[in-house]
């Protein structure tokens, strides 16, 4: 299939997909496309939703599917290796990796063969990129984890993962913004509120952000709250 591929997911929403494989380079194109559409906004544009490999454009009249399709096709063919530096925020997030909060620490140690200190080191020494927000309000999909830290999803999802839990699955890491069921392996907890329904833009992180985790002690974690 030739890429990029443009298809409707709704009468008023077109997705432009750059690949079916997740990579930094593909995501760079997604964010570049988002900036290009923002710069060349059109009458009827509602919102842009970036994902791992695609950007979805929501619109309403007077914009039509045919017109938006043409705009996407044209802008995509003009995408170049942009010389302008992608503007992104750098965000440091404190995480307490204490075993009392890292409920899946045992599973992760067994599966990866790493000790606790190595897990914390690998998780804090790398900068991660926010690929997209989804699954639930404010849930950031971040990557890419070093191969040594890769571990599959849990076979049986946990029913109650506490809000603020920092978890890993595959090449990804994420933070549960509110208490929810989930299949990722919890290795710590942040006191930072990732989603605040009272405070626009509600989500602490957004696609494109660069995140670095900073280990904090249990007393520090408690004093944050």
């Amino acid at each position, binding site marked *: 299939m030739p890429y990029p591929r443009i*298809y*409707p*997911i*709704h*009468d*008023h*929403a077109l*997705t432009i*997909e750059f690949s*079916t494989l*997740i990579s930094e380079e593909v995501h760079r194109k997604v964010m570049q496309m988002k900036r290009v559409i923002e710069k060349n906004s059109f009458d009827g544009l*509602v*919102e*842009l*939703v*970036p*994902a*791992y*490999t*695609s950007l*979805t454009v*929501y619109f309403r009249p007077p914009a039509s599917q045919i017109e938006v399709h043409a705009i996407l096709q044209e802008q995509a063919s003009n995408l170049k290796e942009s010389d302008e530096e992608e503007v992104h925020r750098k965000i440091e997030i404190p995480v307490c990796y204490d075993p009392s909060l890292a409920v899946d620490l045992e599973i992760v140690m067994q599966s990866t063969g790493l000790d606790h200190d190595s897990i914390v080191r690998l998780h804090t020494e790398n900068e991660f990129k926010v690929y*997209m*927000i*989804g*699954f*639930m*309000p*404010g*849930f950031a*999909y971040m990557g890419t984890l070093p191969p040594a830290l890769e571990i599959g999803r849990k076979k049986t999802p946990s029913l109650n993962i506490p809000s603020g839990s920092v978890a890993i699955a595959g090449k990804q890491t994420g933070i549960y913004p509110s208490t929810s069921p989930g299949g990722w392996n919890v290795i710590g907890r942040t006191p930072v509120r990732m989603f605040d329904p009272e405070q626009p*833009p*509600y*989500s602490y992180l*957004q*696609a494109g952000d660069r995140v670095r985790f900073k280990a904090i002690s249990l007393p520090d974690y408690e004093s944050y709250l």
Partner: protein
Amino acid sequence: MSITIIKPGIHSSLQNLGRWGLQAFGIPIGGAMDSESAITANRLCGNDDNANVIECTLHGLVIEFDELTTFAVTGGGCRLQINGEEVPFNRMIKVVPGSQLKTLPFEKGCRSYFATPGGWKGNAGQVLNVGQILSTENIPAPHLAASIVIGNDGFGIGNWKAPEIELPSIHSTTNIHMLPGPEWDDFTEESKKAFTESTFIVSPSSDRMGYRLNGTALKLKKEHELISTPVTRGIIQVTNNGDPIVLMADAQTIGGYPRIARVSGSDISLLAQCRPGSKIKFIYNP
């Protein structure tokens, strides 16, 4: 002007046409399931299309009017009674304080929409509870409302109406038009055929987020790597066990299952009026 929720019924909530512009933060659009009926209710009351309405699922909602009130109900899924007397959908109604409006079981449709001039105050999406009081902005009712004469039974009905909509019956099959989804061609020819030729039943575990359908299990040509892709209202995903799920008003923004099809925009409100147990058939006219 205010009303008291005596009983919220099976599920009642405040809805408008959804919050837009926040999907990039993982926040679903939400809004009325049958947005066409919500708009009609608002237009009968002289409101903006996006004003808050009460969405009542099936029956059981009982409202008491604390003051002289004009209102209109659209959609379906129940019968309406004021102080024990049957009253119609799709008309403006005026009631005296102390009157009660009841929603009773009916075999067609699934959701009804209650609008009042000015719209209900409150956060769209909130679920209504027993004893909750809802009020409105104090705006004058449309001039036409003044022409409604209140009878001895404590209410009056306007002599104009909005058009009735087709309500799906639990006893027949409802045709829903669909268009191929992004992963349509990843399904076997047999499954594509079964999808448009067989009948599916709306499962009891359906809600505002999605309709689970039971019927022929749908199969992919080969197993997919699960990559998260954008989804929205109307998208039909197929779970690992082959059951389709139609995403509805509270659809999440990102989904992990292959998207076999999407419901045509013109039939989403019709589907929202199908209740659990309803039979539906997907129609595809390439």
